[in-house]
């Protein structure tokens, strides 16, 4: 087999410098290329044969013929997943005159192909998708037909499969405007996330309703008042859960969502989820919890179409085994509209500021780890600090609950914000700690400096030592705090870098986009079938060149057309209302005053 590497690389350098840079230093897979019966090279990697051992070109022609039919149905770009040695791409190029993109994240495999065959004509014809593959690139492809190269997917496994999901999900999502019902938990740490997610989903152009179940939190807390008998309390609790389930179903009946997104601990029982499934509603859960502490996921996961977790690794595998639905890793995030740098007046600095502070519940490990900081001006904010001994003297506002508003102020007013992930049994830093809590992202988004305990999943999200400062164990905490107190410049640089990274990659908008892409990758057809009635675009078209037509033309085209949907969000927007906007607002008000109650 002759070495085509150098001429191929030169051709690639001229055509696509970025791809060239990626392949230049890659190593061709050793001993993978073998000769097929027809004399041309074929490829076997990790026990997977990527092209026929007899006639790679003939096989490729048959493959291309099957893809051709799908492309003819209307596409701007054919996206081939997996390059292999390129036979199938050449065959497709022969029958498809349009734009042709190849996704191949494995640089070593690219290098192998470039060494094995003269790919110069092909490299002229195709584009190699950049790695990492950004959303803008996918959007630039227009209408996409994904042509997966089966053997490549088989070999590459999760990496290429998740790229496939991203591409199909994102392109399907483009035409879908969904009705989404976000269901909050009654209380707890994930409650505020409900609003953040809902806002992000609405920003992405979907019709979002929040089912806020917090009004029922105190009722749940009051069950113990009926009787001290645990068994009876349990029965009452079940009745209460049924009551909430009935309410959830009523809300679903009323809003008729395409997608129900439950936040962790939302009152969604197996029975309720099954009923949602019968209605054809797509069911998703963002399980923003530690699966080791909250085992209830096992009871309900099988009823979800999509289950998103903040933990990866073994848990993903275990969760995937428990459901036919899709399980995916979706780390926490921040909401830049809430978590932001905040100018404080002098009085606020006095009350809310401190050299060192921690905001959160007084879990066991925090009570142990923070003792060493008592003489550094430590302030503790939040609940459950009773009985924390000496630390109680640092507790602010008598251990009252802190509002989100004040939280942001406190983060901003503190020199060194501590962030120690909770543990009920470890004395300091949990050595098995994996997921990254919302506080990490919220602090970073505030542009506040934080010292966070090392977590297995942190480095890919925020680079330790660059975008966030970390500590390994309780013993390290005091010297690090002293160091950073003495080096305000380091603090400022790290805080700024952390904030930039969060804004670029870790907002709820990013997460909800990823979540919807994952949902659509699997359920786009089901969701498309549900979108009934006219869209805003249909009505805009029907209105033609009129003020109403122009107004509707500016709205999300795929949104189902409804008075509510159109009028929603007009108020409180800066700038003058146009006539069509004001008339829609008028009709909406009239509807609210006289019509709504007559609607069944």
């Amino acid at each position, binding site marked *: 087999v002759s070495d085509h590497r150098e001429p191929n690389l030169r051709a690639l350098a001229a055509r696509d410098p970025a791809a060239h840079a990626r392949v230049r230093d890659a190593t061709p897979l050793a001993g993978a290329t073998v000769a097929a019966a027809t004399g041309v090279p074929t490829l076997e990697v990790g026990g997977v044969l990527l092209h026929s051992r007899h006639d790679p070109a003939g096989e490729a022609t048959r493959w291309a013929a099957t893809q051709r039919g799908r492309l003819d149905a209307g596409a701007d770009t054919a996206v081939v997943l997996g390059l292999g040695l390129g036979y199938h791409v050449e065959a497709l190029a022969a029958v498809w005159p349009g734009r042709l993109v190849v996704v191949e994240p494995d640089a070593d495999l690219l290098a192998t192909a470039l060494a094995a065959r003269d790919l110069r004509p092909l490299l002229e014809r195709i584009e190699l998708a950049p790695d990492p593959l950004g959303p803008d690139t996918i959007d630039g492809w227009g209408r996409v037909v994904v042509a997966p190269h089966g053997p490549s997917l088989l070999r590459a496994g999760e990496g290429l499969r998740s790229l496939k999901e991203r591409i199909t999900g994102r392109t399907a999502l483009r035409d879908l405007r969904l009705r989404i019902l976000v269901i909050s938990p009654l209380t707890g740490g994930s409650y505020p996330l409900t609003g953040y997610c809902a806002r992000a989903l609405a920003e992405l152009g979907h019709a979002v309703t929040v089912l806020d179940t917090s009004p029922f939190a105190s009722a749940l807390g009051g069950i113990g008042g009926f009787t001290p008998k645990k068994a009876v309390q349990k029965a009452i609790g079940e009745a209460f859960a049924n009551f909430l389930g009935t309410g959830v179903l009523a809300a679903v009946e009323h809003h008729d969502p395409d997608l129900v997104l439950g936040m962790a601990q939302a009152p969604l029982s197996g029975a309720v989820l099954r009923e949602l499934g019968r209605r054809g509603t797509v069911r998703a859960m963002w399980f923003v919890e530690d699966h080791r502490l909250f085992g209830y996921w096992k009871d309900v996961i099988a009823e979800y179409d999509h289950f998103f977790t903040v933990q990866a690794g073994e848990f993903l595998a275990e969760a995937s085994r428990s459901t036919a639905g899709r399980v995916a890793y979706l780390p926490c995030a921040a909401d830049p509209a809430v978590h932001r740098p905040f100018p404080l007046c002098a009085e606020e600095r006095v009350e809310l500021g401190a050299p060192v502070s921690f905001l959160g519940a007084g879990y066991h490990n925090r009570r142990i780890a923070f003792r060493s900081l008592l003489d550094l001006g430590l302030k503790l904010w939040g609940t459950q600090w009773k009985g924390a001994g000496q630390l109680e003297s640092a507790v602010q506002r008598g251990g009252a609950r802190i509002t989100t508003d004040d939280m942001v102020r406190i983060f901003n007013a503190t020199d060194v914000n501590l962030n120690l992930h909770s543990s009920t049994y470890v004395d300091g830093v949990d050595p098995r700690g994996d997921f990254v809590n919302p506080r990490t992202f919220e602090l970073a988004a505030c542009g506040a400096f934080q010292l966070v305990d090392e977590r297995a999943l942190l480095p890919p999200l925020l680079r330790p030592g660059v975008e966030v400062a970390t500590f390994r164990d309780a013993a390290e905490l005091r010297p690090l705090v002293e160091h950073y107190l003495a080096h305000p410049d380091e603090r400022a640089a790290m805080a700024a870098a952390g904030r930039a990274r969060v804004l670029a990659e870790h907002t709820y908008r990013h997460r909800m986009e990823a979540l919807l892409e994952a949902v659509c990758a699997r359920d786009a057809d089901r969701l498309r079938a549900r979108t009934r009635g006219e869209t805003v675009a249909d009505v805009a078209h029907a209105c033609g060149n009129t003020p109403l037509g122009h107004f509707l033309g500016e709205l999300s085209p795929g949104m189902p057309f*409804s008075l509510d949907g159109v009028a929603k969000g007009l108020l409180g927007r800066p700038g003058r*209302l146009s006539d069509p906007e004001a*008339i829609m607002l008028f009709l909406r008000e009239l509807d609210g005053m006289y019509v709504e109650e007559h*609607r069944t």
Partner: protein
Amino acid sequence: VSAVRRILVVNLTRFGDLLQTSPVIVGLRAQHPGARITALVPRNFVDVAEGLPAVDDVRPFDFDGLARLLLAGKSADIRAAYAIVEGLVAELRAERFDLAVNYSSSRMSAVLLGLVGATDTRGWTMTPDGHRLITHPWSRVFSGSCLHRRQQPFNLVDYYKRAAGVVGGPQRLFFDVPAAARARAAELLAAEGAPEGTPLVALQLAASREVRRWPTASFVALGRALHERLGARMVLIGGGGDRPYAEEVAAALGPMAIDVCGRTSIAELGAVLERSRVLVTGDTGPMHMAVAVGTPVVSLFFGPALPFDTGPYGADHLCLHADVPCAPCGHSVTCLDPFCRDTIAPEAVAEAVVARSTGDWAALEAAADRFPAVRWYRTGFDAEGLFDLERLGSAPIDRREQLRRVYRAVWKHALDGTLPQLRGPRLEREAATLRALVPLAAEGGARAAVVENLARRATDLVALEDAARRVEESAAELYRFGAMHEPAAFLVQVFRFDKENIAGDGVAEIARATRVLHEELARRARLLADLLDPPAVAPRAVPAGGGYDARPS
């Protein structure tokens, strides 16, 4: 000569409210003789609007049609509804109104007025960026009074008049009964064996809500008493939906009753009332119709109804108000035990009708003392031409009544410059509350002055932002104070509306207006306090010899 050529009056509420705009329209006509007056009203009240003198052009607004389209809800229906509103707005804009007066306090009407964009709009309207604007101080006091009705100082019609800039104006309502309606009513009554000259007392049996309806048993007892004492027959009036009550009362009264309920148009109802000696009614549309056609009214107020705000706008009508501690109920509550309805005894009402039909005011004074569970009021007008209620009987003025009267004096002073003249019990507790409000308001004014100065110097933006926040903190404290102290609530509420409606270019100007509002609030609070609990020496705020009279009686 008035420069106002075209006037739009919008009233999208009920037919009673529409009748209550009649004095404004007549007043506007007198003040702008050359102007063309257009009334925009719901289509089903067009015949009411056509009976209003001085209206040149009645523009019906098809609410029901629009509502049907929205209920159908298909995009074609919504587009059709859109086209109707678009057409209406275009028509109204083409009129180029110099003055628009909106008497519907709803966001919906505010949006419409914003769209119409008259040169001068009074009442609720909308800013170009979609925020509600209440453009006239009288409209803001009215909006505030709706939230603090216990202190309701003025009749709705007076708010209407003042907001439209009508000074003085007629002290009655108007409705021209068309000849055809008069003839048809005569036929109807004749067919029931009541030719011209038969003594009739009209009874309006129903009301918009159950809690506002006097019980049918009470009406039956009243009918029997009146038949016995006046030899009168009872004309049962009402709409088609009120038939069950009419049937019940008619069955009980037999030939004493003439049941025309549901058998008349609104104009014919006017004609029937014209033929009646007295109307007995709750706070209803027909009550205003009776006033408009010149028939004396004995009106019963209970539940959410108050004689102060919607009492019969004319002289020498009677209002009987159930004197229960919880009156009036809030509009949004559903009372499960409306005992106030039964507080008004049929005997008391019979006494009122008999004495009123003969104009025997001495008898009414005596009756008021005989039935003390009810407050008896005679309607009339004060020296400034504002509707007023004169309490009948010898009961002394209580705290609640005095607070209301003091508020009336303060608003008259604040909005019209009328010097307060008042007697009544001394209310030290309430005065102390108002005095505690004064420094809070002054502090807010001082903080606004800081913003004003910083903005004029245009220097430190951070300091400016900080100072502006301190003003908002002051306002929040004032709102909290208002929420906590009933005697101050109304004052603070109007301050809040005033503040929300500050318009201006630039921070300095807005800050100046904010400062003035705070100073005004402080002055008003001080005046309220001094009127509730007059100091030994008359305060300097009021010029000597200005008729200030706040001594306790």
